[in-house]
């Protein structure tokens, strides 16, 4: 018996008590002994992806593709949000949920749209903000809105604190999580200043007919209970060739959301950073978000 085989059978003994018997087939153990995504070579990545696709097929009765496209060269993604346009309709929130296969029960949202009364404190003191506003019609008179999501910090505290390196910053600036590697300690949630990290407290559930079958290993593939997840700027879309906009950018009815390559001097995002009044959330914490709020009016 080789080492791997030995470890497997040893773990079977221990795990047999902890896991329901029906799951005790080979793939559970392959998943258990799976390497950290960043330590896999191309062949190992392919194997894991193939295994996941079979697993998802069995579970969701649908062909779900799992890509592992690496970051494109010379790209650093940046995001812009026009506060003078946002009407607080929350279409982005739900487009994100559908695109990224977030759990519907319990509910997980990557985007939080904060509602402020005109004249009230905002920017650094978010306590006056309303998270659960419920309006007949938006925008409500006398109010304005500020959507918050992962700011893809250039110096991400979430990455700094993670004990297992289960979360990291990719070369294109996107902060990702290997859901299989995360141990669920939730230290990153305590560290993130923007409430951007979400935990799967229960078994994630998605109605079968609502599953997005185009997925990425580091993005919207089905999630695991007990692991942390977050916005990835729709890594499964933006790394396509030609790249597509993140779902929230695409859906926004008023065009408040902008997206592009910060390294490209001719990109829209660069133009607006250079020509508009721009600010970043909680700048004093020096996390250096690549998410820019701006005013077009």
């Amino acid at each position, binding site marked *: 018996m080789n080492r791997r085989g030995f470890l497997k059978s040893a773990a079977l003994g221990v*795990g047999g008590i*902890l896991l*329901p018997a029906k799951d005790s087939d080979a793939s559970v153990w392959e998943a*258990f002994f799976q390497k*950290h995504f960043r*330590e896999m070579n191309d062949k190992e990545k392919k194997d894991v992806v193939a295994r996941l696709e079979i697993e998802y097929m069995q579970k969701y009765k649908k062909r779900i593709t799992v890509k592992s496209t690496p970051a494109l060269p010379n790209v650093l993604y940046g995001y812009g949000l026009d506060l003078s346009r946002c009407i607080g309709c929350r279409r982005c929130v739900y487009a994100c949920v559908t695109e990224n296969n977030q759990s519907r029960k*319990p509910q997980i949202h990557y985007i*939080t749209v*904060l509602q402020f009364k005109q004249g009230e404190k905002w920017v*650094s*003191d*978010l*306590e*006056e*903000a309303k*998270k659960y506003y419920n309006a007949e019609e938006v925008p409500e008179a006398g109010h304005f809105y500020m959507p*918050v999501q992962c700011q893809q910090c250039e110096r991400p*505290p979430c990455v*700094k*604190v*993670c*004990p*297992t*390196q*289960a979360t990291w910053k990719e070369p294109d600036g996107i902060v990702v999580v290997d859901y*299989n*590697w*995360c*141990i*669920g*300690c*939730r*230290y990153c*949630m*305590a*560290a*993130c*200043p*923007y*409430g951007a*990290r*979400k*935990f*799967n*407290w*229960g*078994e994630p559930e998605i109605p079968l007919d609502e599953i997005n079958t185009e997925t990425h290993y580091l993005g919207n593939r089905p999630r*695991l*209970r*007990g*692991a*942390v997840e977050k916005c990835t700027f729709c890594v499964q879309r933006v790394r396509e060739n030609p790249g597509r906009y993140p779902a929230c950018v695409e859906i926004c009815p008023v065009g408040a959301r902008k997206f592009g390559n910060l390294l490209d001097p001719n990109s829209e995002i660069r133009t607006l950073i250079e020509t508009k009044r721009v600010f970043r959330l909680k700048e004093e*914490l*020096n996390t250096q978000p690549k998410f820019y709020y701006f005013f077009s009016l």
Partner: protein
Amino acid sequence: MTILRFSKDLFKHITTGKRAYFIWLGVLAVVMLNALISYINQLTHGLIVTNMRDQVSWGFYIANFTFLVGVAAAAVILVIPSYVYHFKPIKEIVLFGEMVAVTAVLMCLLFVVVDLGKPLASWHLFVTPNFPSSILMWDVIVLNGYLILNSLAVIYVLYCAANGREYKMYIMWPLVLISIPWAFSIHTVTAFLYNGLSSRPFWNASIIAPRFIASAMCSGPALMILVFQIARKVSDIEVNDKAIFKIAELIAYAMGVNLFLYGAEIFKEFYSMSIHVAPLEYMFHGLKGHTLLVPFTWTALVFNLIAFVVLLSPGLRNRFLYLNIACVLVFIGVYIEKGMGFVIPGFVPDTLGEIYDYLPSYTEISVSAGIWAFGAFFYTLLLKTAIPIYKGELSFLSHNMRRNLKESH
């Protein structure tokens, strides 16, 4: 063969005792079993059975963990006077203090494990440790190191006793010398775990680590005073009153420092009244109608103040009734202050300003109770093993040799 006989003797010793002993172990076993059932339920359904949510992502488990690191660290309050200053009454009981440390660290590790979303994946910690960047990795290292240090000390002392000889100071010294700064390190690192997060202003205050140490020097020794008294009632170990009163005196000073640091923090927040005052407001008089934590905060503060006064006055602290009341007050006071009163307000309001009122769920309470019961169970068995060895009743030597040894003394 000696080992075999020794094990047999030991087993016999552990399995014989008064009725109260078995009732005690039985009750603890029931609590542990109940916890196991709750924990299995948590494993099958996920952490959703707790009341933690994204807004308050750490709760009762981590609160207990934080408190117990303090209890573990507090063993130094015995180690220093006994080994460094050779204060005889404490030297006789330092072993039992080190056993408290071992037990507390084990409980800490259990609390961390039950808090994990995917406990089976914890081996990842050792494959790709994010060291030195993640303070959690530091904590894993210092806590396990501390566990090993104290276990070695306990095992070595007992091993010598079982062989009927004094322990050698040249072996003890290195252990003691390392374990003193190490004890401070476990609590400092645990403080830094919170302290380093700029996202949470309530924790991001430089006073946190010293406050942690000061309060640890209160709660741990208070627990030890209570435990030692119970132990000497139910067994035949001798714990000198002088040792107990000395420890009580040390708690008084530590509590003084603790209250001072606490006051300094309250002053800074309430006088400057910056936006960071919100968590303290939430604790002391509620925030926007949310007053869940208010009774806890005041209870802790009042308990600590009363205990401080009692322990400061020699007339009161040298009377067991008052002393014991004070110790219970310190224990509860610091338990709240370091647990619910420290971990929760860090998350309230959350980073986007939301207030989520957190109280532990039944699962969290029963699992935590189980870990405490485990601690009590484990410590009881440790005492049951250590006391006869320490007194020479249980040893590697045969009965005859033991008798000869006694006569020649």
